[in-house]
């Protein structure tokens, strides 16, 4: 039924009424009346033409829509008539809805959208579970056996990211991030090359001809997207790799720290430990379950596979299991709790916004009580008035919602700038259909919420009472409702403020954690020797490294330089296995002791600012010709040499070397400021860089630099480097302060958002209590005038008005404290160094809220004391 159908019916109805009137008039004329008299009489008899038309239209069943249009028109007029009220209400709602929509678009993009692969629920992350690592690295030989022996996987593939190659022969030499992988990885994720093909079976084996797949980004950046690129060769670390395919630029290898530009078969990894069954080389796996297979079945299957391997290779595989984790959980498990807590918090902001608007409407409906009474007296049904009020609040909600979506679109873009990079799939955060649907739903829901209270309240008072009151309005019940709403608002705001307070205290506690080294004076970067040095003799490599060390040391601004291999605090870990001299050699590697290894130059301790506890650190004489020595941290010393001195003791490494312990140093928080204390593997072992077999350092190493300007010093090092060789690359510069900051990124992001939400809540709640107290004081002007005329002092009036406001505040704070006691538990896993029910935060934040509320009430209270009794009594 269209608008046009309706229009035709209207015209027809007009014609029908007209013909009725004409016939009635004509009959009267036939009885001898004049034309004028006849027409008047016919009209009189017919009655109200407009009314007849309207009730007839109702019979078509279209009255509801008609009335809605009427209500909308009237509602718009009413809203336009009080622009101040309308603006405040709409802005409040826009903030609430906008904040919710923005956060929902993040939740939607990160948590709700399925992973961008076909049948993502069949994908699992595969890891080895080891005594020290629930999700450790898979060794390549074990992977090959897993692949062969399992019965529940359609396919399995491994990846080793965070590798880089020196690219030469294509413009300036540069370090390119790459990923090692096994054949079948892209097929498993349903990714098709835009050009060429993926790795063929067997191409990933050790000894196969070197091939490489490049990303669309690299193709464009270095090769100008040339179509004839397949079969051409790239020189990586001095070797030629044949380009076989191009991976679409849109492909995102989730969970990888850096976005790689090329993919290389794992067999090309010239790591002597690759075929070592016990090696932990940072290899992860992804598997696709056969259709219909559950994760539990796959786990049981892998349990069988790994137990067989443990029986076959007890020395390396005893105690090694397989961790099978749904890929979604693996990738999103860490951000989910953060986002959900934030989503809860932002919901509170919307609730406060609703309460605020409800209060505004309530106050205004008091002013409009007279209008409603007159309309009721003129025959408007109660339902009709409620509907009118609801239409008005819906209008507010829809306009506020529309504005909120615009705010959210802008806000989301801004938020993405501060989002931690660890928050995966941030690129998926867009305002899409689902986000709009969400915004629409919460707007309507909000409209009903805040519209219903005043609408139902309006229904209460009888027409007589209101008309008798002469528009002064205001019954006790309505004031109680307003007071309750203000208290609710205070309670909600308090919960958010406490949440924000706990996050602030968490961050403060984390910043005060001593990482074990002086982060603010240290920067790190990667260094790789020219590819031509790769096959040089150990003597030549060491000589070259010493030369590089001295050149870097001489660069302006540098206070110290040390090569570093193995683990780097908070960045990458590496472990060695050992046993104590004098104890029997353990039967298997899994029964050996583990330590995080730092293979560093003699100056490392001073550069990092790590305290020496006893003995000595390395000297320049601890080189390849000297006896092998080690320095351990306090944790290792206490764990293995409790009650005695570690110095002079010997350690056997799993590779056969024997080290003498010459010193003990402070512990470094390798695993992060927050989690390090909870880890089981914390023992740390330092060995001299020059005592590392030359084969291990042929490619290059990490470099740590001490400087007063750690952020700026890299520039002079780069210059020093480029003067030495055009094929020698320095890359990946990072200050330690940045590393620490990014390790706290998720918490900082949560704190900032919590702070914004809590600030919004505080602002809205202050406006709310200010509005209500002002309004109530205004309503009592008459009473205050009488009191003052009877001798009440200004302080009495001040106390009276403040008292009313503070009563609501205190009730609200009390309820809020109780609610927070229950709710902050939900964010316990976001907190560090502070309890979820931290009394200081609870009391402090409660006090702040009380002071803000007092200030908000003080303004109207002061105004009330300036009431001139004469004016107040004359008024009305």
């Amino acid at each position: 039924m269209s608008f046009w159908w309706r229009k035709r019916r209207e015209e027809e109805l007009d014609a029908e009424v007209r013909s009725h009137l004409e016939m009635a008039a004509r009959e009267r004329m036939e009885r001898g009346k004049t034309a004028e008299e006849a027409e008047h009489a016919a009209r009189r008899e017919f009655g109200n033409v407009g009314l007849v038309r309207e009730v007839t239209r109702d019979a078509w069943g279209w009255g509801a829509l008609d009335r809605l249009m009427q209500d909308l028109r009237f509602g718009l007029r009413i809203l336009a008539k009080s622009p101040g009220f309308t603006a405040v209400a709409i802005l409040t709602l826009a903030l609430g809805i906008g904040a919710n929509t923005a956060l929902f678009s993040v939740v939607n993009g990160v948590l709700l959208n399925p992973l961008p692969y076909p049948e993502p629920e069949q994908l699992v992350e595969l890891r080895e579970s080891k005594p020290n690592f629930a999700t450790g690295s898979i060794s390549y030989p074990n992977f090959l056996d897993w692949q062969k022996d399992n019965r529940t996987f359609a396919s399995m593939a491994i990846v080793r990211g965070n590798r880089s190659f020196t690219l030469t022969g294509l413009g300036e030499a540069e370090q390119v991030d790459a990923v090692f992988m096994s054949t079948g990885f892209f097929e498993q994720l349903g990714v098709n090359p835009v050009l060429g093909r993926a790795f063929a079976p067997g191409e990933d084996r050790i000894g196969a001809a070197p091939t490489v797949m490049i990303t669309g980004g690299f193709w464009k950046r270095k090769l100008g997207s040339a179509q004839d690129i397949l079969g051409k060769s790239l020189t990586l670390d001095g070797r030629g790799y044949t380009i076989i395919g191009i991976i679409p630029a849109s492909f995102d290898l989730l969970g990888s720290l850096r976005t790689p530009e090329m993919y290389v078969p794992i067999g090309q990894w010239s790591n002597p430990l690759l075929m070592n069954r016990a090696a932990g080389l940072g290899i992860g796996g992804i598997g696709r379950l056969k259709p219909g297979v559950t994760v539990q079945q796959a786990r049981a299957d892998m349990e069988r596979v790994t137990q067989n391997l443990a029986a076959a290779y007890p020395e390396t595989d005893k105690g090694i299991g397989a961790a099978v984790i749904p890929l979604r959980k693996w990738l999103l498990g860490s951000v989910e709790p953060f986002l959900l807590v934030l989503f809860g918090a932002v919901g509170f902001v919307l609730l406060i916004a609703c309460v605020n608007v409800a209060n505004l409407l309530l106050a205004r409906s008091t002013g409009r009580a007279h209008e409603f009474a007159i309309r009721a007296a003129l025959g408007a049904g109660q339902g009709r008035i409620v509907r009118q009020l609801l239409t008005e609040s819906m209008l507010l909600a829809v306009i506020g919602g529309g504005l909120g979506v615009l705010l959210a679109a802008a806000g989301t873009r801004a938020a993405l700038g501060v989002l931690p990079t660890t928050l995966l799939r941030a690129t998926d955060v867009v305002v899409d259909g689902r986000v709009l649907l969400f915004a629409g739903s919460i707007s309507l829901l909000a409209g009903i919420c805040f519209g219903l209270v005043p609408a139902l309240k309006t229904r209460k008072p009888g027409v007589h009472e209101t008309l008798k009151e002469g528009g002064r309005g205001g019954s006790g019940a309505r004031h109680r409702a307003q007071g309750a709403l203000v208290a609710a608002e205070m309670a909600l705001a308090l919960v958010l403020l406490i949440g924000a307070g706990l996050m602030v205290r968490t961050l403060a506690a984390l910043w005060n954690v001593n990482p074990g080294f002086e982060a603010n004076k240290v920067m790190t970067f990667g260094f790789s020797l020219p590819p031509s040095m790769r096959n040089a003799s150990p003597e030549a490599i060491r000589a070259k490294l010493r030369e590089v060390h001295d050149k870097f040391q001489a660069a302006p601004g540098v206070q110290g330089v040390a090569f570093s291999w193995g683990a780097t605090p908070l960045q990458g870990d590496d472990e060695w296995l050992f046993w104590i001299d004098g104890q029997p050699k353990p039967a298997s590697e899994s029964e050996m002791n583990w330590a995080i290894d730092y293979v560093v130059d003699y100056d490392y301790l001073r550069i990092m600012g790590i305290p020496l506890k006893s003995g000595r650190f390395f000297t320049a004489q601890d080189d390849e010709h000297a006896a092998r020595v080690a320095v351990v941290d306090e944790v290792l010393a206490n764990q293995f040499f409790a009650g005695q001195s570690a110095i002079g003791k010997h350690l056997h490494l799993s590779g056969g070397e024997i080290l003498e312990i010459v010193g003990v140093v402070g512990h470094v928080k390798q695993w992060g400021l927050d989690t390090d204390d909870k880890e089981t593997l914390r023992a740390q072992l330092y060995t001299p860089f020059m005592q590392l077999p030359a084969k291990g350092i042929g490619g290059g190493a990490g470099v740590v630099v001490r400087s007063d300007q750690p952020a700026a010093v890299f520039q002079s090092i780069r210059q020093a480097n480029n003067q030495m060789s055009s094929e020698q690359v320095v890359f990946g510069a990072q200050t330690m302060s940045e590393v620490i900051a990014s390790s706290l990124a998720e918490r900082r992001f949560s704190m900032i958002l919590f702070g914004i939400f809590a600030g919004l809540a505080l602002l809205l709640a202050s406006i709310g209590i200010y509005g209500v107290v002002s309004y109530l004081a205004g309503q009592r002007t008459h009473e205050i005038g009488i009191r003052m005329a009877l001798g009440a002092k200004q302080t009495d009036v001040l106390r009276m008005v403040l008292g009313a406001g503070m009563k609501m505040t205190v009730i609200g704070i009390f309820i809020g404290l109780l609610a927070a006691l229950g709710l902050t538990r939900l964010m316990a896993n976001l907190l560090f160094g502070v309890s979820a029910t931290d009394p200081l935060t609870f009391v402090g934040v409660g006090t702040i809220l009380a002071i803000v509320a007092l200030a908000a009430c003080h303004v109207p209270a002061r105004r009330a004391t300036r009431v001139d009794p004469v004016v107040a009594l004359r008024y009305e």
Partner: protein
Amino acid sequence: MVEKKARYQNRIELLQGTLDLLILQTLQWGPQHGYGISVAIRNRSGELLQVDTGSLYPALHRLEKQKWIKAEWRISENKQRAKFYQLTSAGKKQLTRERSKWSQLSDAIAGVLQPGEK
């Protein structure tokens, strides 16, 4: 206030049902326009029943929507264009039902009233 409203609603209810019956009955004698129907009811009731246009037209449009009557624009005997309503077969059946319901009702009311009058 509430009571008054309820009484008002009852009156409407009663009138509506009766008016439908009267309209259907009037149309049994042939197609007629709205004005003609109101005149016919007035004349046949001995000027006792005055049909309010505010009830007549909604009733006509409602009956049309229920497909008991259908409408058509024609020229009246006085050469005036008018919308003529006509009973449909469903309308005829409805009239029979309404009539029997009415006679039951009036019998019932008469039965209630009689002993009191004795």
